[in-house]
């Protein structure tokens, strides 16, 4: 810092070392504080997250009392609680007697405004969907948000055949077992939900069939 003669920075010009030391020290301190805060709040947060997830799974799979996280890797499903990036995971739900009831499958896709994330329950024995829960969406209040606020719409998914393919149909039109009533005024969001589920089905149903071996059993 020899050129300080005409740079007019003020009194003593601290050397680079001091700057580096200050920053490193600040980093050190802040890291410490953050980690303290993190460690203190972590149990509450993880517990809450787990609870939310569990509630969602239990909701889409009625009668379920416990669950497991399954990861699809190397063409097989394995139980795995370690969340990793790029995981393709679903949840299996068991009733009080420990019997496998079905799977809770997450899905995501574009909605009217932004990506919709949802979770739905699937019962392989009946090839039926047993419930649907929207995890995240930015649909228009009063219209698109009916996909989770309108009980009638959510009820559509309580027992819905997946064959041949789910369709959203305008109210009052004849329906098949795999058709749902679209929300009036929010056809697009309704169709988006349906499409997300269909796509997830296309991905997961073959995998589940192929993997419905003993390892899925507890």
């Amino acid at each position, binding site marked *: 810092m020899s050129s300080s003669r005409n740079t007019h*920075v*003020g009194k003593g010009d*601290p050397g680079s070392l*001091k*700057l580096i030391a*200050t*920053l490193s020290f*600040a*980093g050190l*301190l*802040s890291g410490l*504080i*953050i980690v303290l*805060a*993190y460690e*203190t*709040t972590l149990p*509450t*947060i993880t517990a*809450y997250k787990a609870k*939310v997830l569990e509630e969602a799974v239990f909701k889409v799979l009625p009668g379920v009392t416990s669950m497991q996280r399954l990861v699809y890797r190397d063409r097989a499903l394995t139980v795995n609680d370690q969340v990793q990036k790029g995981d393709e995971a679903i949840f299996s739900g068991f009733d009080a007697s420990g019997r496998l009831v079905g799977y809770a499958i997450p899905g995501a896709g574009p909605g009217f405004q932004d990506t919709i994330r949802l979770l739905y329950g699937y019962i392989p024995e009946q090839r039926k969907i047993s419930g649907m829960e929207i995890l995240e969406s930015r649909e*228009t*209040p*009063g*219209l698109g948000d009916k996909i989770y606020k309108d009980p009638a719409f959510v009820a559509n998914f309580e027992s819905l055949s997946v064959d041949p393919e789910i369709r959203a149909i305008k109210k009052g039109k004849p329906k098949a077992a795999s058709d749902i009533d679209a929300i009036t005024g929010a056809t697009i969001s309704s169709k988006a939900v349906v499409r997300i589920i269909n796509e997830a089905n296309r991905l997961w149903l073959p995998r589940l069939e192929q993997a419905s071996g003993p390892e899925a059993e507890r």
Partner: protein
Amino acid sequence: MAKHKEDLHQEFIKGIWRDNPVFVQVLGMCPMLAVTNTAVNALAMGAATFFVLVGSSFLVSSLRLWIPRQVRISTYIIIIATFVTVTDFTLEALVPKIHKELGAFIPLIVVNCMILGRQEAFASRNSVRLAVMDALGMAAGFLFALLSLGTVREILGEGKLFGFSLFGPDFEPWVIMILPPGGFLTLGLLLLFFSWVKERKQRLEQRLTQLESEAQ
């Protein structure tokens, strides 16, 4: 000593009205618009900002003699980011629902120009007492702005205030208020309203002084 008290008082008051960070200085617009779709969110955001601003102002002004000029901005950012991260975790642990609603905008407090601006313009040059007073005032001003916007948007957009229905179930909500355009428009119109009030006041004062001088 009394005079000193007055000063402190002034530092606090100016942030709320005369130098209001939003209405006058037009700072911190992003969180201002993004999270004010309901009054509760606005309140939470305001509180979080309040904590971060006051905390970092306190810290910055106490450390101001030790921080070299060249790295002051980096240091402020680290300090602010630390406070924000702590706030983020705390909110997530205490009020997870609201935390989810505010989403990415809690971390974004770090880059709220108002906060960094106060450190640079005030906290780094003034005593801890003044800095904290100033931060309290600014934060209160910010909170005030957030709340006014949030209130308007929630009342019109949902017919509610803090979640309580105001006009009964038959009220037709003004959906736009909750949508992005409503944010822009409401803030624009609020600003317009405030400058109108200010102008009217000025005109009145002018008239008064004119009348006085005529009376003399």
